[in-house]
């Protein structure tokens, strides 16, 4: 992947803003008014993310979970929780957030402002892949389908939950620990605490869904790897001096190709830029790039069997075969293109120009000649396996490069097929009449292509698209086997292909563990806090305190089951009347047991599942 901004950069920055820092005051401190205002900013942006996962990205046909699926419920509960949290924070005493706000003085408020800024920037990054459309949003990049996939939405919701929990912890500490000498602001403290309690409820709902249908670590990695939708700069030819430089050049050019191919496909069929010259260049250079991928995969298979990845060798052998089939399919498509022409010629689309660059970069990597060019041809001696990956740890980098190249070619195959079909439907494909048999008597050198010619040509392109997708998928398996950084491409393709109710996982090896989750802070209960406040250090006494805290936590959660019907149930604010009872309630909610949320919920807020769109068939890629 190239060096542009990625969603994970902003997500990591948000988590880092909440992490304890050596030499800095605890984040669980601050002015209640200021913290409430900053928390409202965070809650607002978290609400927008949750809304995105629930409604805004419904423009893509995909298999959605059943209406009663755990993630669907978690999504609905998260939205309710954030609405309730915002409701408490929008208390008349708290002014509405103003952007840009004045810099906060309190440690926690400052950190929350940072979190809000990071999350807003991250959401902006995701939205660069969409544009407003006449009815719904339209996709502006091949990443859009991935972002809207159910698997990525789950990963995003899991991140929302992971951020909510430490925020709730710190915010509640501010609410329940008045600073000596500061005004009491009892009402505001209660409201802040109640808002934090709803953030715990959010975290517990997401956790519960994650326990039933875990979010795979690969999906979280994929979410973090989503790039900003911008064309990367052309790699400098000076980078060809080293294998890492060549690999970066291949990966960047492939990313540029994906971007430009997508953009070309958005052009109408009558665009003069669609020429046979362009189609031919894209086809011939894709045949060449696929041939290079086959050569490289063969070399890597030999290297893998000698080095650190012997298990990846069969995958690489299969990748070489698949790339060879793709080269053959492109070859046939390019041959078929010789029989036709178009009403405009000469112009080459940026995608076709980039396809040529990709053939050049992959050639420089594949052949031993450091001055290789397209004119040198594909019969030059290939680079030796040892030279391609001198150290075992170099192998994944080269695998990633050919994976990117194959993936770029696969996307190009789809967009070229789409454009060719549109050109055929618009009557833009012509044939030289000299190539027609004597039955045709056409008094000019060219004529509309007969349907048997266009049909055969489109069939070749279908084959090329299918073979290229297959090659990319096979190389993707080799990328996964070697831990190549490009494996997220394989996850992305899988996420847009297969979404749906996963069976409750029992094997949790691949389950994502969140980096920030364990750093949420002290989860000691109120009695332990009180003992520590008294200066007690005896392990026995602290252990008894912990047992009693746990027992009170359990008692409250069990009591939630016994709650009376709504009309006679005390509102949650009653439970928060005193700092002591609020601390007990917080401790129960912080346990992550979704049952504890019943202490806060009114029946009107009973679990509501999202209305889900009907299943729609997968479109032809």
């Amino acid at each position, binding site marked *: 992947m190239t060096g542009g901004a990625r969603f994970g950069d902003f997500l990591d920055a948000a988590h880092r803003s909440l992490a304890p820092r050596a030499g800095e005051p605890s984040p669980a401190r601050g002015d209640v008014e200021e913290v409430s205002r900053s928390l409202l900013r965070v809650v607002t942006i978290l609400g927008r993310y949750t809304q995105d996962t629930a409604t805004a990205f419904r423009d893509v046909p995909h298999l959605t979970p059943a209406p009663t699926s755990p993630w669907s419920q978690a999504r609905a509960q998260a939205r309710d929780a954030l609405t309730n949290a915002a409701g408490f924070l929008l208390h008349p005493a708290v002014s509405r957030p103003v952007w840009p706000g004045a810099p906060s003085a309190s440690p926690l408020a400052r950190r929350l402002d940072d979190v809000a800024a990071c999350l807003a920037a991250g959401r902006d990054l995701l939205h660069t892949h969409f544009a407003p459309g006449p009815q719904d949003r339209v996709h502006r990049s091949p990443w859009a389908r991935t972002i809207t996939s159910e698997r990525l939405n789950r990963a995003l919701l899991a991140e929302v939950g992971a951020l909510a929990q430490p925020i709730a912890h710190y915010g509640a500490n501010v609410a329940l620990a008045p600073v000596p000498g500061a005004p009491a602001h009892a009402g505001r403290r209660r409201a802040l605490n109640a808002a934090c309690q709803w953030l715990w409820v959010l975290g517990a709902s997401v956790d519960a869904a994650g326990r039933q249908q875990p979010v795979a670590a690969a999906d979280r990695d994929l979410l973090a790897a989503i790039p900003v939708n911008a064309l990367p700069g052309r790699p400098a030819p000076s980078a060809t001096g080293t294998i890492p430089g060549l690999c970066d050049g291949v990966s960047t050019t492939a990313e540029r190709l994906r971007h430009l191919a997508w953009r070309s496909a958005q052009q109408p069929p009558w665009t003069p830029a669609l020429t*046979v*010259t362009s189609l031919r260049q894209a086809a011939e250079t894709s*045949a060449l790039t696929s041939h290079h991928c086959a050569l490289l995969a063969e070399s890597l298979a030999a290297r893998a069997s000698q080095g650190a990845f012997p298990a990846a060798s069969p995958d690489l052998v299969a990748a070489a075969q698949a790339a060879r089939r793709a080269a053959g399919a492109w070859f046939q498509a390019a*041959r078929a*293109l010789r029989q036709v022409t178009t009403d405009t*010629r000469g112009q080459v689309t940026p995608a076709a120009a980039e396809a040529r660059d990709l053939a050049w970069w992959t050639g420089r990597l594949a052949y031993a000649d450091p001055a290789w060019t397209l004119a040198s*041809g594909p019969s030059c001696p290939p680079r030796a396996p040892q030279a391609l990956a001198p150290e075992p740890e170099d192998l994944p980098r080269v695998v990633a490069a050919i994976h990117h190249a194959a993936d770029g070619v696969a996307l190009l195959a789809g967009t070229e097929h789409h454009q060719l079909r549109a050109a055929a439907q618009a009557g833009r494909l012509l044939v030289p009449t*000299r*190539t027609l048999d004597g039955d045709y008597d056409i008094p000019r050198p060219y004529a509309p292509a007969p349907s048997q010619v266009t049909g055969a040509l489109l069939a070749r392109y279908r084959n090329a698209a299918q073979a290229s997708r297959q090659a990319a998928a096979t190389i993707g398996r080799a990328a996964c086997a070697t831990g190549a950084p490009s494996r997220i491409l394989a996850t992305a393709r899988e996420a847009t292909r297969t979404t749906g109710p996963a069976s409750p996982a029992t094997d949790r090896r691949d389950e994502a563990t969140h980096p920030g989750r364990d750093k949420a802070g002290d989860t000691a209960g109120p009695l332990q806090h009180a003992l520590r406040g008294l200066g007690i250090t005896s392990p026995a006494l602290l252990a008894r305190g912990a047992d009693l805290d746990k027992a009170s936590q359990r008692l409250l959660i069990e009591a939630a089951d016994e709650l009376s019907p709504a009309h006679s149930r005390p509102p949650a604010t009653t439970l928060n009347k005193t700092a002591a009872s609020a601390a007990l309630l917080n401790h129960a909610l912080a346990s992550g047991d979704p049952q504890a949320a019943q202490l806060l919920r009114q029946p009107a807020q009973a679990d509501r599942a999202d209305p889900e769109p009907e299943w729609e068939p997968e479109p032809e890629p």
Partner: protein
Amino acid sequence: MTLLITARDRLQRARGLASVLDAACDAFEDILAVIGAYEETTTSAGTAIAFLLVATQAANGRDAVLFAPSLPPRSLHPRQAPVPPERGSAGKIKASVAGLSLLLASQLAGAATTAGAGADQAACHDAARCARTVHDLLAGADR
């Protein structure tokens, strides 16, 4: 390489814009036919792809001539039946196509000077450039 030798002879004998365009169009077609016949039987992916790049340029050259207004609507030397091209070795094909493409480039460049400004001249220039690229590819120079 009879097909290419015949094409070469016709091109050398062609006089006048229409005649050169007609001979050039057929010569590009003949290059495609010879390469196509080789592709049908070869088992060397490397050589096949090398010829693919050459054939693409030949097809681009043919298309450039095809849209020249002075190209006769029908071939001046129509063939009674499609001539099956001989199957030659890669080296022989390379040499024959390289020679023919050099002649094509020269004849088309000459025709461009007599064509006057306009679509005919542009077509001659474009086709001559494609012919030169065919030659360069076979000679191993970068385009």
